[in-house]
């Protein structure tokens, strides 16, 4: 899906957020010389085309009490990783699940799941259950909790890193 110049402008204008007024799409339209209908149609197309992954509220999970943010990583044989990744993705506790390259010798893991919770112990128990559910108790894995958060936003671009997915 290719965006035209007007749509690129629209993307840039709404990147920071929707105005809190009764008819926000009409208001946005005034900035980009589009009428309300055209703005709504264009945004609907972007959602349908996947350019906008989600349109809505974006929460700060720390502030909601989700302090235990566990990047759970596994070394899964390449011929099984897609099946296991899809299964992990079905689990309620998993918020993101990606396959990534190993970087040997420093990094032997190829499957990444984010598990967020309020307490570390509960998160570790969920991860243990996840492993058991797939018969992966003995698969090499590690759980990397996050410590300090150094940077949550950086702004420079039509869609700033802040407006993109949280974990690439």
């Amino acid at each position, binding site marked *: 899906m290719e965006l035209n110049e007007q749509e690129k402008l629209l993307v840039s204008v709404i990147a920071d957020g929707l105005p809190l007024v*009764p008819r926000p799409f009409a208001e946005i339209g005034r900035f980009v010389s589009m009428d309300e209908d055209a703005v709504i149609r264009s945004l609907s197309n972007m959602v349908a085309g996947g350019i906008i992954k989600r349109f809505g509220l974006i929460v700060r999970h720390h502030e909601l009490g989700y302090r235990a943010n566990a990047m759970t990583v596994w070394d899964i044989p390449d011929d099984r990783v897609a099946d296991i990744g899809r299964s992990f993705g079905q689990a309620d506790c998993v918020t993101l699940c990606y*396959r990534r390259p190993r970087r040997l010798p420093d990094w032997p893991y190829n499957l990444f799941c984010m598990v967020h919770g309020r307490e570390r112990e509960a998160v570790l128990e969920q991860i243990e259950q996840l492993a058991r559910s797939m018969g992966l108790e003995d698969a090499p894995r590690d759980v990397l909790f996050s410590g300090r958060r150094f940077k949550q936003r950086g702004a420079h*671009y039509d869609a700033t*890193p802040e407006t*993109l997915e949280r974990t690439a």
Partner: protein
Amino acid sequence: MKQQTVTLDATDRAIINDLQGGFPLSEEPFADAARDLGIDGHELMVRIDRMLKNGALSRFGPMYHAEKMGGGLTLAAIKVPEDDFENIAGIVNEFAEVAHNYARDHALNMWFVIATETPERVDEVISEIEVATGLKVHNMPKIDEFFVGLRFEA
């Protein structure tokens, strides 16, 4: 950086749980969304405004797909000597393309997202960070995406 847990009432929680996944693309979206929540559009706007200000929400709007926008996106990690951590974090965070930089418990102890305007720029930024820090940057772009829900029950 706010680290305290914010206070939300039942209506705030219902708003978060309802509107993370989507927001109506209609002429009067606040009024439409509010109807299901048992409040009116004005109150919904007031509550969203308050949650943006108290830090429960980071934004209210679109979350873009980097690659479909024509940009580059990756996850990167560095093994940073413990006593040099603050210094290296400062250097890495100077890069406008770096977002979501977290310390994590592992030999690879610094993890961050790189988001660039073009896919080619990812490798350039990695090289620039390596030069600036003198440390190896491990690039771990996604190969497959199995699930991206990222919703939080409030």
